Each structure stands twice: as structure tokens, then as C-alpha cells.
């Protein structure tokens, strides 16, 4: 299960989601812009409040760290 926590206008979030789409990786897009509960969920998972955050089966990646994401997804 892959979740991407993002805000609407964050350019890194857009690029990250495009990267996953290009690799045919299915993910749930969690827009935290207007939902403080979802924001808290993201903060609890990542210990910080910068977007994007990716949750790959419980492994958390902060920011668009392409190499780490590719490694976790075995791309």
C-alpha cells in the first residue's frame, strides 16, 4: 500500500506523483491541504510537516527522494 501525502500547489508533490505514474505504481493520493486530521496523520508518521511524504508499506520517505523511493519499490 502506497500513500502520497501532498498539498495542492507543491511542485515536488506533482513531480513525485508523475514519477510514480510513469513507473505504473498505484498509490493513494492524500491531499492534506484542508484536512488537519490527515495532516496530523502525516506528522505522526514522518515526525515533521514538510510535503511530500510517501508511505510505502509503513516505510516513510520525506521529500521527493527519488533514489530511496526507487530502492524501496525495487525499481
Amino acid at each position, binding site marked *: 500500500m502506497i500513500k502520497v501525502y501532498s*498539498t495542492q500547489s507543491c511542485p515536488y508533490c*506533482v513531480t513525485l506523483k508523475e514519477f510514480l505514474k510513469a513507473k505504473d505504481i498505484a498509490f493513494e493520493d492524500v491531499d492534506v491541504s484542508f484536512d488537519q486530521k490527515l495532516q496530523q496523520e502525516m506528522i505522526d508518521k514522518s515526525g515533521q510537516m*514538510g*510535503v511530500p511524504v510517501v508511505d510505502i508499506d509503513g516505510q516513510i520517505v520525506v521529500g521527493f527522494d527519488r533514489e530511496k523511493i526507487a530502492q524501496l519499490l525495487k525499481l
Partner: protein
Amino acid sequence: MLYDLIIIGGGPAGITAGIYAARKKLNTLLIAKDFFGQTAKTGEIDNWPGSPNISGGALMQSFEKHLKNFAINIKENQTVAKVNLTKSGSNSELDLVKFTVRVESGESFEAKALVVCSGASPRKLGVAGEDKFIGKGVSFCSLCDAPFFQDKNVAVAGGGNSALEAALDLAKYANKIYLLEASDFLRGDPLLQDSLKRTGKVEIRFNQEIKEIQGKAMVESVAVVDRFSQKTEILAVSGVFVEIGWTPQSDFLGGLVSKNERGEIIADPETGQTSLEGVWAAGDCINAKYKQVILAAASGARATLSAYEYLNKLKDEN
């Protein structure tokens, strides 16, 4: 493969340099970390003619698409680590100058000429707590992180357009915004200043020096000193957005080209030529007074046109 031209950078300057190189059919490689520049992090761009009120992200996507319409070699997701110069040939007049560009992943590429459009990165305050709280209240991207400050008090450091834009992004969410400017005036556009005032949420403070960003797990306050009274005040804020300008990214060139005291590459205003033959520079990494999307794009065009003339001359000589 020895390219005619390597362009370093994927912001407005690099993309425009690439478009001009493609139209001149130069055998070009463009190396870029991404195609954001600093523009994609700007909420709204309203001074690019023909595209009123476009978001920075949308403008950059359209730039990128335009570039990729051309048959140009692109190495994306790559950061340049080092540039080296090699000269070959014993007869000085027939010296062949060659540039080797090494990227952080270890690969190297070679070209006869370079156009450097490596841009700039956000300047930090350099105070206690800043690094510690990055992502925990300290942010350099209001567009990305503003939603986390719903009904909270925040501080924005700076008084230029970027700081005013950040305060405007935050005004959509935050309860109150302290705009902390170190000098006694705001450099940002009067139009933006008007918009800020209309939000009714912004307290503009001049002559404020940020001393420390404080908190436990997350930012809780910021210590500011008034430059005149020398009084320290603790402002209770959950976020500090740092928008105090930019530092040019030119370290990978080492001492190859002349730079000014700010680290900006010194480029001829007419041609973009640097102090080293075969190297041109454009955009926010050069010593140009105004940093604007349109000026970056223009300087990218100028640099490639000038490099094109040089490459033609090389061909004639050899």
C-alpha cells in the same frame, strides 16, 4: 561523445538556452536536476507577458514541454558536481579546449562549450534552531507547506517579493503573520504590499533581526532583536518561513571562472561570456542586478547565441 554544447540547469535560463541551441541544431546536452527553477515555487507569476496570473508551476511545465518538443539530449535528475577544463594539442593556436562535466552519480560528459544556468538556492538565516527545525516549522516553500499553519501564528523573514508572496500564501491559512524585515523598508512590489495589507492578517515589522528559532519538537517561538532599541522580543509562532534571498549555485565551477563577492559568476552583459573562453553563464547564477523569470530567459538566449558564434568560429579555424 564530444558535444558541441552542454547546458547546465533546467530553470527559465537553461530551458531557453536549450530551445535556442536546438533551433541552431547544435549537438547539445542539457543537464538538470529538475525543471522547476525557483519559478515553480512561486504561487502566481503575473509579469510573463502573454500568460497573466499563471502559477509558477504551470509556467514551468509549459517551459519544459516546449523544450522537449525539440530533439535535444537531456539528462534529468542530475546535479553537476564538478567541471574540468582540458586543453589538447601542442600548437597553442590549435589548442582544443574541452570541458568535462561530472555529475553526482559519477557519469561524465564532454563538450566544446558550456552555458551555465545553475541558478540559486534559498539563503539561510544562519541562526540557532534553523537547521534543527527544518520541516518542523522552518520552511523555505510557503506554497508547499502553508496549509500546515491553519489558524496558527507564523513569521516570515524577509521583505522582497518572495517574502511578500510567502506571506500571501500563508494568509490563506494562518491566523497572524509577522513579516520580519531586517532593513527599514520593503523591497517587494507595491502591488503585493497592497494585497498583503488587504488580508488584515499581517504585521510588518522593520529593523528586526532574527536571533534564534526556538521550540521542543516543533517551532514554538522566534527571538527577534530590534536593531535600534536592541531589545529582544519572543514572538510565539509555529512556523518560520525564510525568504531572505538566494545564494548562487556556482561552487561546482571552483576557480575556473571569475565570481564576485556574492559568488555570482561574472558574465558580460552583452554576451553572457564569462572570464573563461568557451563558457557562458545566464540566469540567477550571474552578476545581474535584477532576478526575474523574463531576464533569466533572455540571458539564456543570449548565452546560447553567443556560444553558437564561438562554435562556428572554432569550426572555421579547424
